[in-house]
């Protein structure tokens, strides 16, 4: 039987939200340390997007919903490597 497909949670940049706020939210939701959260925030700032989590669909949906609840834009996409 094929293993379940993995999904990516992609954090999208916006030009309004305070960077320290985005870092705080990424730390809170994903348990990142300050350095990892900052890396994702800067990646999104520079490239428009950063993959912040990969895993099963149900959890990916929960993470994307939480990001939206904190007004950080997020989308889901299948992980092509899985």
């Amino acid at each position: 039987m094929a293993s379940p497909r993995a999904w990516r949670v992609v954090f999208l940049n916006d030009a309004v939200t305070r960077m320290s706020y985005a870092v705080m939210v990424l730390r809170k939701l994903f348990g990142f340390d300050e350095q990892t959260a900052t890396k994702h925030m800067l990646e999104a700032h520079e490239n428009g997007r950063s993959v912040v989590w990969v895993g099963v669909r149900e959890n990916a949906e929960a993470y994307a919903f939480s990001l939206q609840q904190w007004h950080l834009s997020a989308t889901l996409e299948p992980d092509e490597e899985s």
Partner: protein
Amino acid sequence: MKRVEVRLSIPAVAPLLDLIKAVADELRTNLAVPLALSDSDAELAAVWNEDLLASQRDDCDRLFSLFNQEFFSEGVVAFDRENAEPVLRACAALRLRFRSTRLAHIPDDTLEALEASSSLGNMSEDVQKAFACFLFLDELQKIILKYLDPMAVEEDE
């Protein structure tokens, strides 16, 4: 419980509240951040939309509960660990809404420069007021993140 009291200038802040309230009213039926899900997730998006709107409304209500009798008599608003997160989210939502409506015509780099200088530039009166709200909400976020960072709270406990 840790509590941070901030004394604000009533003559400076009170005139902004009506406009912030008007924008908060728009957020009762419009998400600050449009959903970015794919077309194949339309059913999920419909469910999320309702839940996110409800969350957004609750957060804005918490923000406005700061501006109570104590604020209008003493100019004091109080943050604690109970209201820090909803107020942070409400400020974020309101700033995004100001940016996408009242301040939509200002290019990113111009707005960034104006923010850095806290200057009102050559804006019309309406835009000046919207920009003052935008800055004020940012200041509230800065205060909460400095003194009541939710991550610091979790590390403390």
